């Protein structure tokens, strides 16, 4: 599903994001990406949804070479990759329902499809009863679940989550990770960037550890080690 060949990203001549990363993530996998602060985890995530372009190397998503993706094709890619962030990125003046519907609206979806899909994804994240609330009326965990619901509207093949639990307490973190696992079970490939030792150890899935922009270790059923 995701294939990186010797991918490097340098921001400025001497600021390295990632360096020579080669990876293969098959469809349906759940990968945790860990590493110290500033080792290029977010950079790697951004390369996957084309927020950044690699300085060298090749990136393929589902057989699509996005290394030099044209600006006008990015929307197409973004509808195949769901993204979730630490800071949720919800629109405060829109309700839960509207926030989720927004992702479909801006892609030009028909109203009927929106009425179909939004309740379904809200059901998946368990927020269908809070659809008319505003983000400020929700807990952090709930807000992150709205963001996840929004990421799911296009039934993405890949879900990239950059520290989705970074702002959450243990209980909410557990809920979010459970949710991500559930989504993974439906067949979506999940890339989870995290700092959280607990999360990684409980998942018992593949762990890629970055160090200074390079892959330091890559183990199936790994544990958090640093």
């Amino acid at each position, binding site marked *: 599903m995701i294939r990186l060949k010797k991918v490097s990203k340098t921001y400025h001549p001497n600021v390295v994001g990632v360096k020579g990363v080669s990876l293969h993530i098959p469809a349906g996998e759940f990968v945790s990406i860990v590493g110290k602060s500033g080792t290029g985890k977010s950079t790697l995530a951004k390369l996957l*949804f084309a927020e950044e372009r690699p300085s060298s190397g090749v990136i393929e998503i589902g057989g699509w070479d996005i290394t030099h993706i044209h*600006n*006008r094709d*990015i*929307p*197409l*890619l*973004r*509808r195949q990759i769901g*993204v979730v962030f630490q800071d949720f*990125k919800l*629109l405060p003046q829109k309700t839960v329902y509207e926030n989720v519907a*927004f*992702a479909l*609206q*801006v*892609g*030009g*979806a*028909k*109203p009927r499809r929106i009425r179909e899909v939004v309740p379904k994804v809200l059901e998946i994240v368990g927020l269908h009863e809070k659809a008319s609330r505003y983000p400020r009326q929700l807990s952090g965990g709930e807000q992150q679940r709205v963001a996840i619901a*929004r*990421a799911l*509207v*296009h039934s993405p093949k890949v879900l990239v989550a950059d520290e989705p639990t970074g702002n959450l307490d243990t209980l909410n973190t557990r809920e979010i990770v459970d949710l991500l696992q559930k989504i993974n079970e439906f067949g979506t490939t999940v890339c989870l960037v995290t700092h959280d030792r607990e999360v990684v150890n409980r998942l018992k899935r593949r762990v890629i550890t970055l160090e200074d922009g390079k892959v330091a270790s890559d183990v199936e059923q790994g544990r958090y080690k640093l």
Partner: protein
Amino acid sequence: MIVSSFRVTKFAFQNFWRNFWLSVITVSMLVMTLITINILLVLNVVTEEAISLVEDRIEVSVYFHDYVDEATVGGAVEYLRDLAQVRDVETISADEAYEQFVERHSDDEDIMASLDELGGNPFGPTLVVKANSAEDFELIIDALDNPQFRDDIREKDFSDYQEIVDRIRGTTDQIATFGIALTGIFLLIAIMIVFNTVRIGIFIHREEIGIMRLVGASNWFIKAPFHLEMMFLSLLAVGIAAGIVFPVVNILEPKFSVYFGTQGAGIAEFFMENGLWIFGGQFLILAVVTIISTSMAMRKYLKV
């Protein structure tokens, strides 16, 4: 597409209301630009009218000697009529000239007395030649120096309106140059204001736009609201400009008839007849200008 258009429209109007004062400033600047353009148009119409009024009066009177016969005069008329510069030739026969003279001076006993003293008809045939424009004067005069008639002509007389026409043109050309410069400056300011309005719109919506991008909004969906908003502001500006120009022109028109006589300067008529073209054209100008500056702002601040 229809659903998207509706959403884009909604978005555009949100932009408009959220930056209400910015929208007001943008529209005001656009209106000012349009008003200058329309003042230039009025000036142009008035100038042309004034000049054509003057040119209407341009005529060369050609007096033949009293011994010249009808055939020669007829030949001269033919010859003149064939000149492109000649608009009309009126023939006044010797008898008519006499009658006209008597009529004009019947109150003046001295003149009548001296006319009697001369005995017979001292007048020869006369031609009144009207030119197409003031510049054609010299040519007509020169043409009459043709050896075929030169000796038959006693006198050529013309009132020199060229100078008046030149003066009118000189003055209006100066005003027009100033007006064009002003339009240019206003247009430049308008471009900058539109650019800035879009920039601020992008800034205000940066969060929304960022999220739109992440969830795969098409570039069209991101850009269209800004274009649409600016189109709407342009349309509003044209509407306001038309709403100002039409009444003002109708108020001015009777004032001009003092100078132009009953037919007036024709500005109200000009705007009535060409209103659609005039304001349609101005909308097109604004549309092009705003599309360019909106695109520039988006290229710089939206990076799509």
